[in-house]
């Protein structure tokens, strides 16, 4: 059973069972593969190098759209223009944090330096945003409904399983953020 992250003399420490590490690794990998930009044959390598993507489009997948939202609420054209300049590096930054968190799972001891903690908190957040879209969490009532599912013996279908995974990552992120807030006070 995982232990909550806490802030102490060694920094932020946590404990995860091997099965929990495997679960998180696969969740991080799933979100990484969602975020990886598709390779295009006719892509300008220099443009790619500086992060430009003239072909960038607003994602059709809702979860991906939540990870890479429009920058303006009521101006799709300006949002698209902005996306062409920024989306590639945003994807790469998110992938970087997810990879760093996944790598951290390979170590025996979970001791997070400040940079590790930031990578973990954003990685867990992105995982939760994706799971929440798959679970159709649209408002606080939906979230509360999912939150009530705590018993692993109840997980009879995919949705039930996803709900429990969501609750586990929520609990883990909350304990991490509390430890990070404690470290701000120190």
């Amino acid at each position, binding site marked *: 059973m995982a232990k909550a992250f806490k802030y102490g003399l060694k920094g932020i420490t946590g404990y995860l069972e091997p099965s929990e590490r495997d679960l998180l690794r696969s969740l991080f990998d799933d979100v990484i593969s969602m975020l990886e930009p598709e390779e295009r044959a006719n892509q300008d390598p220099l443009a790619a190098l500086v*992060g430009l993507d003239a072909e960038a489009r607003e994602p059709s997948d809702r979860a991906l759209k*939540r*990870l*890479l*939202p*429009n*920058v*303006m*609420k009521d101006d799709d054209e300006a949002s698209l223009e*902005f996306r062409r300049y*920024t989306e590639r*590096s*945003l994807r*790469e*930054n*998110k992938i*970087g*944090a997810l990879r760093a968190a996944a790598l951290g799972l390979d170590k025996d001891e979970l001791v997070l330096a*400040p*940079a590790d903690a*930031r*990578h973990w*908190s*954003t990685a867990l*957040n*992105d995982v*939760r*945003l994706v799971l*929440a879209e798959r679970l159709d*969490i*649209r*408002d*606080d009532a*939906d*979230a509360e409904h999912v939150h009530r599912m705590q018993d692993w013996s109840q997980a009879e279908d995919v949705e039930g399983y996803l709900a429990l995974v969501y609750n586990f990552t*929520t609990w883990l*992120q*909350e304990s991490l*953020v*509390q430890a*990070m*807030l404690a470290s*701000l006070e120190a």
Partner: protein
Amino acid sequence: MTLSVALGPDTQESTQTGTASSTDVLTAPDIPWNLVIWNDPVNLMSYVSYVFRSYFGYSEAKANKLMLEVHKKGRSIVAHGSKEQVEQHAVAMHGYGLWATVEKASGGPGSGSGGTGSGRGKGKRG
């Protein structure tokens, strides 16, 4: 934008980035833009507050006030500045997974949403 700008190489430095750019905001002559954070049922209140504190360098009280405004009113203006500045903040917020948009400041009622400042942080610099 690099990882270090979007996510902050460490709390101290990202605080300085936020503080530095918002200091510029105060003297910027151009039309102000707002950075808006929208409520969603997923992001943890503690996390949103943490992001406001570590990225913008806001005090605990100010970060919590803005976070609660997002939670209760559905949105909050958490910073303003030039278009470029708030766009940069928006990308950083997207990096954290917060739902952020930019909009032209209307100057009318409600645009200031009481006490949401121009991004003056805790003043950790110098």
